[in-house]
Structure formats: structure tokens, C-alpha cells
């Protein structure tokens, strides 16, 4: 579904991603872990071109999206993204947050978008918040709504950029539950996280990144039990699993 070929990204003279090639298949739940500054978020943000690669190509569903002239908005509609800081639109109500993109991109007429938005809110048990502004919500509620906002576009893949890192500990669970549910329904996803337990639980494949490279990858069982590379071992020994 996503094919990354020799992806390199520089920020100024700093090489953030170093010649990464990787294929993500349909239905996979790829979890990217690694120390801060290892390039994992940048890697994720390159997949929907929020960051432009310095060189290399990315293919999505057979389209080379890094090529000039690709309709990137059309591609992004098929790739949902969830951010660390939620990034809900504070000037819009919860329901308007959900319906803005499908209505403006003419995916759905207003009435149907609202109905679907309400159905999404039912799904996360927040229908009573439809006409509330985001500032009145807890972090966990905001992030669950942000996930639903991305799902409103019926994406083929979901990209999660440390979705629980900015949450109070007691709210992490409710957000992970929503992601887990989505995974169980067969959604293809790429997830950058520091939640090792969750990585183990939902991941079908773990990628360990350091200094802009994918150092090691494997199924969660093998990866956490028998890491091969020294850097992986050293990283895993420092994080709580």
C-alpha cells in the first residue's frame, strides 16, 4: 500500500532521514519506536508529505506521490493523520470539526456529513459534546475526536504521531482503546509511539529507528524478546515495557 524508496530528508545541513526504504502492506499495523530525534515522526510526516523528502520516492496505492503534479490533497484524503497535540480547530464546534473536511472536499453533503459526524461521536460515546468547543474538552476527549475527524474522510490508512504523548496518564487508556478498536477492524496503520505495551499488543511489525535509519524490525514477539542489534537492546533496556 505504501512503498518508500531511498527516502532522505535534510533539515538544513542536518540529515534526519537516511536513505530509508520500506514497504507497508494493506492491513499492517506498523509501530515505529526509537529515541527522541531518531527521525520517526519525520518519517511518518513524509508519508503524507507534510514534510517534503529531500530525495527518494514514496508510492501510495500505485501512485508516486513525491512526483510533481500529483494531486496531494486527493492523496491526503485517503491518509488520516492524528497528531500529538490533537490540533482540533478551536474556532469550530466538535461537530463542525468533524464535518469541515468532508463537506469542503465535497465528499458528503452537509446533512449526511452531520449524520455521520453524530454517528462517529456515538462511537466514542461523546454525542452530547457535538456543539461544544474543543477548549471545554479533556485531552483524551480531544484526541478521540481528532481520530474520528480523520476517519470522517474514510481513509485507507491511518498515521498516528505519538497520539498519547501529550495526555495525562489516566486518559491514555481511552485513546488507546479507540486505536485498538480501529486496528481490530482491519485498518492499515502506522503508529509512532512510546507506549511499548501497546506496540506489543496491536503491532504486527515493529520498526526501531535511530539516527534517521531503521536499525531493526521484526514481529513484536521476536522484537521485544530477542532484539538483535546492540542499539535496540540498549534502548529497550532503558524503557519500561
Amino acid at each position, binding site marked *: 500500500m505504501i512503498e518508500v524508496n531511498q527516502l532522505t530528508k535534510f533539515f538544513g545541513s542536518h540529515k534526519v532521514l537516511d536513505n530509508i526504504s520500506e514497504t507497508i502492506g494493506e492491513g499492517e499495523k506498523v509501530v515505529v519506536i526509537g529515541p527522541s530525534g531518531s527521525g520517526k515522526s519525520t518519517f511518518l510526516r513524509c508519508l503524507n508529505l507534510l514534510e517534503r523528502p529531500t530525495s527518494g520516492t514514496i508510492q501510495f496505492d500505485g501512485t508516486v506521490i513525491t512526483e510533481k503534479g500529483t494531486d496531494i490533497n486527493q492523496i491526503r484524503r485517503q491518509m488520516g493523520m492524528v497528531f500529538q497535540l490533537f*490540533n482540533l480547530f478551536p474556532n469550530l464546534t466538535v461537530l463542525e470539526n468533524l464535518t469541515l473536511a468532508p463537506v469542503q472536499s465535497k465528499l458528503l453533503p452537509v446533512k449526511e456529513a452531520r449524520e455521520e459526524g453524530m454517528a462517529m461521536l456515538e462511537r466514542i460515546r461523546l454525542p452530547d459534546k457535538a456543539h461544544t468547543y474543543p477548549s471545554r474538552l479533556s485531552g483524551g476527549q480531544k484526541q478521540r475526536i481528532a481520530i474520528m475527524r480523520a476517519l470522517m474522510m474514510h481513509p485507507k490508512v491511518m498515521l498516528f504521531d505519538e497520539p498519547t504523548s501529550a495526555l495525562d496518564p489516566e486518559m491514555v487508556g481511552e485513546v488507546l482503546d479507540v486505536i485498538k478498536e480501529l486496528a481490530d477492524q482491519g485498518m492499515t496503520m502506522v503508529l509512532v509511539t512510546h507506549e511499548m505495551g501497546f506496540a506489543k499488543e496491536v503491532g504486527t511489525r515493529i520498526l526501531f529507528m535511530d539516527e534517521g535509519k531503521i536499525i531493526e524490525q521484526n514481529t513484536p514477539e521476536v522484537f521485544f524478546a530477542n532484539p538483535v542489534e546492540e542499539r535496540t537492546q540498549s534502548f529497550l533496556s532503558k524503557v519500561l515495557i
Partner: protein
Amino acid sequence: MFETLKAQFILNFIKDDRWMFMWIGLRTTLLVTVLALLIGTLLGTIFAVIRSMHDQLKPNRRDSAGALLLIVLNTLTKVYLTVIRGTPVVVQLLIMYYIIFGASTNKLLAAVLCFGLNSAAYVAESIRGGIMSIDSGQMEAGRSLGLDYFTVMRFVIIPQAIKNILPALGNELITLLKETSIAGFIGLTDITRGAEIIRGTTYSAFMPLLGAAVIYLAMVMLLSLLLSRLERRLSLSDRG
């Protein structure tokens, strides 16, 4: 004392329906202000978007045709802002009327354009500041949903930016209203000019000028009140 004031009032405003000059002036002042405000806000927003698009242009994407156009537009906008903000508005008004309009009969249009173009320059920098103050995550979230740059600007960024800079925009509106008092320089009868006409007829300065001042003050106070109400209403979405 009271009798003198009363006589003065009757002489300057009641006799020969002289209040009509103030009334005509008030209507002109309001018309010029409202139209100039529309032009100023519209153009100012466009300038602000050009300027902030340029500032957000990533260094590695400066080679496309769109980027080149943007650089040209940005340079033109910067020159415009420098010229407008670097010259007195009276001079701009005289240039607009005597040179650009060739002293034609349409004084109102000349004044509206002059004040609108002038106001746009000040509004542009305020709105640009407002746009730049919005977290970049907002644009990223909008773009990640497949919306184009302008759609995100229109529905997400600009509403938040305007709300943040509403006090500054309110001040600009008040400044604009008072600035129109120089419209008399091209012979347009606004409030100030209306007062001057009365003064020229009655040879008494006190009542007409005080009257003009009171009308401006009342309008400014009303505007301030409306603006603070609007601010309070817009900040509803901020309450935690």
C-alpha cells in the same frame, strides 16, 4: 451664560436649517468609513495572506513557478506597505484626487479609495501578525485532511487570527473613522467640513466645532462598546 449658549446653538444649528450641513457630513463620514473599511479589510487580508504564504515558504520549494510568482507578489506588497505607511494620508488623498482622479467630480470615490487603500496597509500587518501567531499544527491538521491551503486559511486560520487581533482591528477602525475628517481637503462635505461651512457662515467657531467633536466622540464610544461586545461573544470558544 445659558442664554448666550442657547442663542449660539440656535444661530449655528437651527437657523436656516444649518444642522443639515452636519447631517450631510455625518452621512458622508459614515459612508466613506464603511466603504473604506470594506476595501481595507478585503485588500488587507489578501496582502496578509500573500505575506504569510511567502514567509512560510520552505527553502527547498523556492524553485517552482508558483513560488516565483509569490516572491514577486510579496515584493510588490512590501513596497506598497512601505509607501503607504511612510507618507501622510493627507498627501495620499490629494494625490488620489488631483493626480489619479484628475480632479474629476467623483470626490466620494476618490476618498473611499484613498482611505481604503491606506487602511489596507495597516490592517494587512495586523492580520499577518495574527496569522503568524496561529500554531502551525492548525494548518497541518487541515492539510492532512486533504483540504487545500486557501480552504484551511478561510475556515480555520483567518477566523482565529481575526479573533486574536480584534482589539487592533477595532483601533484601526476608530483611527479610520477619525482620519476621514481630512476629506474636506478635496472638498468633500464630511462632518468636519460641515462644521467648517457653518463656522464660515456664522463666524462663530465654538458651537460647530464642539458639535463635530461630540459627534465623533459619540461614534467612537459606540464603536468601542460594540467591539467589546463582539470580543466577548467570540471568546466563548476559549472558555475552558
